[in-house]
């Protein structure tokens, strides 16, 4: 809170203090970096995070400019709510849906760069032209408190606009629900019914195979292996399958298996040579487990 007051005092003055300039010169590059990140990151999630960062920094700038309310709103509403909304959607759409930065439209990239440069230079030139050195701070404007000041304006001069935006928000909310709401044509089947018609048309009557259920792997995105070592698509969650986010690990798994058998074989060979110690049990048990496991697996599949 005291930080706010200090910033406020800074803002009240008619020329920025060195503190603010320091702050600016530290934060501005980060903001720009965040912007760049937003634009350039391949994965949407990273872009979102970069954007969030930029927004927070902007919030700080708001505060520095004496817009306390906005600063807070920026953090709470924008960074807090809107960006989270983005992240949710990203989750729905697929976290790792990274779009290749390879350009498909001919000359689009060049045009974009050109325009960016042009626009930037023009804006900056414009500002440079308009720049008038001194400025009146928000001293008396914020005298009765920034929030009160905003409120008084908002509910007197801008009340109509305020109401209208309220209506707009409502409409937006309704619209969003309308858009994303999916009409159910038929009743959701109960578990019982599902099992019944699973039996009826004899499709995997037992529960689906568990994913990654074999030696040293148990991630949900890893398919279980069939006896011949090929992965079983069924064992992975449909959503992951749809997004193509199955981790294809069975090859090295197979390699490990052969290596394991290799080792056991050699181990047995030594055992025959030496012919001592009951370690064999454990080994045999392990191997037995493994085979038992596979058999069970294969059994499930075949059944």
């Amino acid at each position, binding site marked *: 809170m005291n930080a706010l007051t200090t910033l406020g005092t800074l803002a009240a003055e008619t020329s920025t203090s060195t503190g603010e300039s320091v702050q600016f010169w530290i934060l501005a590059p980060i903001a720009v970096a965040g912007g760049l990140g937003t634009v350039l990151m391949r994965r949407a999630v990273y872009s979102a995070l970069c954007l969030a960062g930029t927004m927070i920094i902007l919030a700080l700038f708001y505060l520095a400019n004496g817009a306390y309310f906005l600063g807070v709103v920026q953090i709470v509403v924008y960074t807090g709510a809107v960006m989270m909304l983005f992240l949710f959607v990203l989750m729905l759409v697929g976290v790792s849906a990274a779009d290749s930065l390879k350009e498909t*439209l001919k000359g*689009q990239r060049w*045009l*974009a760069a050109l*325009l960016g440069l*042009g*626009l930037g230079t*023009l*804006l900056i*030139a*414009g500002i440079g*032209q308009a720049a008038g050195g001194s400025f009146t701070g928000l001293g008396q404007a914020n005298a009765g408190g920034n929030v009160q000041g905003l409120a008084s304006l908002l509910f007197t001069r801008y009340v109509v606009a305020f109401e209208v935006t309220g209506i707009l928000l409502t409409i937006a909310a309704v619209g969003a629900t309308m858009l994303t709401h999916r009409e159910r044509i038929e009743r959701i089947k109960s578990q019982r019914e599902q099992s019944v018609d699973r039996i009826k048309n004899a499709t995997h009557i037992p529960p689906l195979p568990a994913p990654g259920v074999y030696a040293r792997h148990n991630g949900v995105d890893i398919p279980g292996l069939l006896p011949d070592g090929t992965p079983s698509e069924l064992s992975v969650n449909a959503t992951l399958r749809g997004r193509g986010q199955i981790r294809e690990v069975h090859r090295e798994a197979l390699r490990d298996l052969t290596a394991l058998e290799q080792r056991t074989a050699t181990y047995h060979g030594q055992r025959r040579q030496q012919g001592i110690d009951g370690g064999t049990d454990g080994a045999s048990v392990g191997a037995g487990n493994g085979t038992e496991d596979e058999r069970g697996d294969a059994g499930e599949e075949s059944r």
Partner: protein
Amino acid sequence: MESLIGLLVAAPLLGALVLLTGGRRLDRAGHWLGTALAATSFVLAVVLFFDLLGRADGDRTLHQHLFSWVPVAGFQADIAFQLDQLSMTFVLLITGVGSLIHLYSVGYMEHDPRRRRFFGYLNLFLAAMLLLVLADNYLLLYAGWEGVGLASYLLIGFWQDRPRAATAAKKAFIVNRVGDIGLSIAIMLMFTTFGTFAFGPVLSSAAETGEGTLTAIGLMLLLAACGKSAQVPLQSWLGDAMEGPTPVSALIHAATMVTAGVYLVVRSGAIFNAAPDAQTVVIVVGAVTLVFGAIVGCAKDDIKKALAGSTMSQIGYMMLAAGLGPIGYAFAIMHLVTHGFFKAGLFLGAGSVMHGMNDEVDMRKYGGLRKYMPVTFITFGLAYLAIIGFPYLSGFFSKDEIIYAGFAKGGTQGWILGSVMLLGAALTAYYMTRIMLLTFFGEKRWQPDAHGHEPHPHESPATMTIPMIVLAIGSVGAGFAFNLNESFAHWLEPVTGLAHGDSPVGHGTVSLAATAVMVIGVGAAYLQYGRRPAPVVAPAGSFVTRAARRDLLQDDFNHAAFVTPGTYLTRGLVYVDHKLVDGVVNGLAAAFGGLSGRLRRVQNGYARSYAVSMFGGAAVLIAVTLLMRAV
């Protein structure tokens, strides 16, 4: 009395309407109805004639004003009739000969399934012709003028399933149309000059008008007359017009319609009198046609075409006489009337012959017919004598008067004209004798036709012979009657005026010369055709003969001069219209299409490229604002 004038026209018009719209139920009695109505108007004509005779010379002009036709500001055209001696003469000729030919057609067209329509057309013709001669202004005359053109078109092409008939009909109408241009321009000139085109005011005030205008009007009228009366250079249609039924040839293309040109010239006498140049042209045209027609008549083997040539040349006489001015007008009309008689008679005779010969028209396939059809022979013979100007028959009087008038023109002109006309007389005698000999004398030369039918020449029924007899009487007696102390000329005098030029040669001399050349002509013909039998297949003949058989190459000329270039012109224009005028438009359309095709590439549907243009726009806007501020 005046009210009867309208009825003159109305009677046949009614007939035409009833017969043409009446439908099949009239088929049985239609022809009699038509004939009756024609006769009616003849009776009316006679009544009016005697009424006129009853009046004093001065007021032998009746007027009937029915209603105002086209009233627009200064332009006042009325449906109004004027009956004076000149039109009376024509009315009598038209209705008289007309009625006779109606009667004749009853027999001639007996076996034609479309006889009702034929009579309808005939009545239509009568109505139009009467309108022509009774009109009291040039516009109404023009209406009748085109009306007879239509009637002749319909009648020439009456057997429409014969392509040649259809073509001939079309040709006749088109050539007449060319002439009609003349008439319409003449009327327009009159309107712009006099502000009216009624006979009365125009003719009365012709004198005090500039000669140039009058010459123009006169020449235009002459052009019209050439078209209608088949005078050089618009004569080419008459020969082909013989495709029509023979009564038609007799009525329209011999007796009445083709003489309308002469009527026009005589009627407009006042104008021509004041425009000597125009008169000269009239004379020239007449003279040329006179000889031209005679030559053609000498060469044709088709009896009707030969007669058509003769018609042409006879009308040439009339035209020439009309060109002579007051000294010729009366005799032009007189010859017109007598010619109406004997030429109609000749055609009807020819028709009767064809009737008996399975419609064979080639004279070389006739011969010796006098035994088979005596009445035809006698009537035809009398008409023949009349036309060649056998002394004291009608042709003798009228033609001699004209020749005399020609000499009376005076000076070298007079001599030239006179001698030309004498030459014409000789030729007339020659070709008429040729026809006579080939048809009625010598041995029979006919063979079975394509279907193997041996023609059985026989006399025609009474309905056909009676008119022939009447006409024969007319052609014998008319001239004499007319010439009794110039009764005819005096009768016409109030309209046409009458003058006697001073002829270097006396009346008797002219008659003598005419008779002499007539004898020569007859002799020559007899030597060639009378003594030895004529070959059935025409000999090749000299170049002149061959040219004459082809109407002296007139059609070839027209073809080369107008038809072919015209065809190419139209073809070219069609091409131009399609490729050029339309091409420009279509090209424009195609250009726009291509352009838009290019432009729509911009709309590639990628939101991001739209965004690019959006930001581009924003950038441009900012730049502009900045520049604005900078400036």
